């Protein structure tokens, strides 16, 4: 017969789970089996034979108070629910007396089960059921009919009948591996020699926990105190194949890079030698999720293509392989976003953006300045009302003067007129030139330029 201890820190104000971790680590010293109910409240089982319960609670309170300086309340009961309520007042409920302890409690305490809405508690009170004991004495079928199945479960819990086992917290595995150089690594070979066992240790740590990772951050600290770090993508199905290469490329990049940068190789590289190397995995996945064999999520061709893209990223740097996404905006330049492949996710395009050009969009970008002229060679302008000052006849650029055979527009845009710094006002014109080209032209600050070439 196990008993349940709940430790509650009534003055805990932090909602952050991470801030509660040190307290849990301290509790781990007392018992290996801790369930976090919420930050500031934890439950652990206690064997009846483990000794005096009051003595255990004293030790627990001493430990937590010594660590955090905060007050700690404990409650001991057979069931978790009774123990939570007992912790509210720091009581020990004797063995087998849970129902007796719960019966006189206020009906509002039923909310601690997490199964009852506050409104239902109020309804029960209005029905004249003010205590848990009164609630438990209601016919079970009537409770289920009136309030639903979860209320019936709450009734069973309040009667001290239903007790669930505690779920222990998952310890965060410490997977980051570090090596400190006895003699700082001055050459790539020395660093690589140290990096090889380091990556083996990382992979072993992952494999021991049946995990694999999708990213690895390589960090090097130099003797001068500089920290360089870079995150690399790995194929989660086979991280070992690439990890060694990634680390080698990275170290070569760093160590040959600054030799190039400062002509004096000897003095500088000695001062910039690597004192510490660290490999930190992230994007942890279970081996089964990462495995392709069992649940075919990617076909072989995609896997090979992604390996080729990763290889290219390794060769040219992660920013060289880009994918295209939609971005917020109306003009061609702001409307598309380029993001490194497998990099951080770009926020999706929001809103409908009325006023942006419909498809097809220009296929080539252009920024060259042009002049749009009427038949007499006068430069064209667009009035505030969005009409041209004359009929467009020629586009002049780069010493050429090409007749316009068809055109459309202008379409004026007046963006963010309320914000002086971000305001933008321009007009767009589509022209089809006599030499077969078609272009999107922008008029901004009384100057025409190419917004893009249709090609």
């Amino acid at each position, binding site marked *: 017969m196990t008993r349940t201890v709940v430790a509650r820190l009534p003055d805990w104000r932090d909602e952050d789970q991470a801030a509660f971790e040190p307290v849990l680590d301290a509790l781990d010293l007392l018992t290996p089996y801790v369930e976090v109910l919420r930050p500031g409240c934890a439950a652990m089982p206690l064997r009846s034979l483990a000794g005096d319960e009051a003595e255990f609670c004293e030790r627990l309170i001493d430990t937590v108070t010594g660590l955090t300086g905060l007050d700690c309340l404990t409650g001991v009961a057979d069931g978790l629910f009774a123990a939570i309520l007992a912790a509210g007042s720091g009581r020990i409920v004797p063995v087998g007396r849970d129902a007796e302890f719960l019966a006189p409690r206020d009906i509002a305490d039923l909310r601690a089960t997490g199964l009852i809405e506050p409104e239902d508690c109020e309804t029960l009170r209005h029905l004249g059921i003010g205590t848990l004991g009164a609630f438990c004495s209601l016919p079970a079928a009537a409770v289920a009919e009136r309030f639903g199945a979860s209320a019936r479960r709450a009734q069973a819990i309040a009667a001290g009948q239903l007790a669930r086992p505690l779920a222990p917290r998952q310890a965060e595995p410490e997977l980051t591996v570090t090596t400190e150089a006895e003699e700082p690594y001055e050459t790539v070979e020395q660093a690589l020699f140290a990096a090889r066992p380091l990556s083996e240790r990382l992979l072993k740590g992952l494999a021991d926990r049946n995990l694999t990772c999708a990213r690895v951050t390589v960090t090097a600290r130099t003797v001068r105190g500089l920290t360089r770090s870079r995150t690399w993508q790995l194929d989660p199905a086979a991280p070992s194949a690439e990890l060694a290469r990634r680390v080698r490329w990275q170290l070569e990049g760093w160590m040959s890079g600054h030799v190039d940068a400062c002509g004096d190789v000897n003095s500088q590289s000695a001062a910039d030698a690597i004192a510490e190397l660290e490999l930190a995995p992230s994007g942890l996945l279970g081996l089964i999720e990462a495995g392709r064999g069992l649940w075919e999520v990617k076909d072989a061709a995609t896997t090979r293509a992604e390996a080729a893209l990763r290889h290219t990223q390794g060769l040219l740097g992660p920013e060289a392989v880009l994918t295209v996404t939609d971005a917020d905006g109306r003009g061609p330049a702001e409307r598309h976003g380029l993001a490194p492949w497998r990099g951080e996710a770009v926020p999706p395009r929001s809103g409908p953006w009325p006023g942006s050009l419909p498809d*097809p969009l220009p296929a080539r970008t252009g920024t060259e300045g042009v002049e749009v002229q009427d038949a007499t060679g006068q430069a064209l302008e667009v009035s505030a009302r969005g009409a*041209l000052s004359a009929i467009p006849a020629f586009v002049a650029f780069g010493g050429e003067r090409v007749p316009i055979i068809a055109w459309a527009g202008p379409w004026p845009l007046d963006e963010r007129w309320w914000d002086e710094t971000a305001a933008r006002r321009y007009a767009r014109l589509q022209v089809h030139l006599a030499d077969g080209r078609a272009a999107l032209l922008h008029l901004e600050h009384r100057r025409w330029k190419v917004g893009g070439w249709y090609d």
Partner: protein
Amino acid sequence: MSKGAVPAALAAELGLRLAGELAPAPRAPAPVLAPARHILPATPDISALLPYSGLSTVTAITAGRIGATSLLWRLLAGPSSAGAWCAVVGLERLYPLSARAAGVDLERLALVEAAGPRIVDAAGALASGIPVLAAPSAAFTPAQARRLAAKCRRSGTAIVWWETRPVNGADARLEVTEVRWQGLRANAGRRYGAGRLTACELDVAARWRSGLTRRARIWPYGGRPDNVLDMPDQFTARKLRRGDRP
């Protein structure tokens, strides 16, 4: 008797070999077979221009023609919508968002920014696995281009040469002979031009390695008019001549 001697003596007596003495059996040499051609699907309008009706190892698009970028997008539309990754290396000043209107799945399009000799490195790395690779031919020496084509043939990658300099050995060479933009009007005498650019029509000529030529009319951004009287194709024209109702 020492520890290792017992199994050795037993093995000698029974005429057995120890596991440590076993060597892997010689493997039969792989049968020498010509690798199957990797043909990637193309959109129906383009497939008529290509041998094997799809993208084979080397395809070339004559750069510098107006409308060539639209043709490139249309060529990549078939493989990318079939789920194959397409990589475009070292082509500058492309506006990739326009590819979507031509049917390219942008989630399967990777733009690789490289310049000068890095283009060759990047293309070599990509050729080991990416299904479709588009690269400018001017960045490669003829020997490098040949080597890349051989590598692609082994790995099943289709190269699309952006032919800024002629390359040898293209299975098909596509050239835009004429481009017509649809939707813009002359708007003579008006201060505000009606209409907008809605589509384009490309006349594409293909020359195969065998010397065969094909022609097709491609609408990369859709919008092909259904009015057969404006654009009679051969079949309906024949019908009209015969006096049948189309």
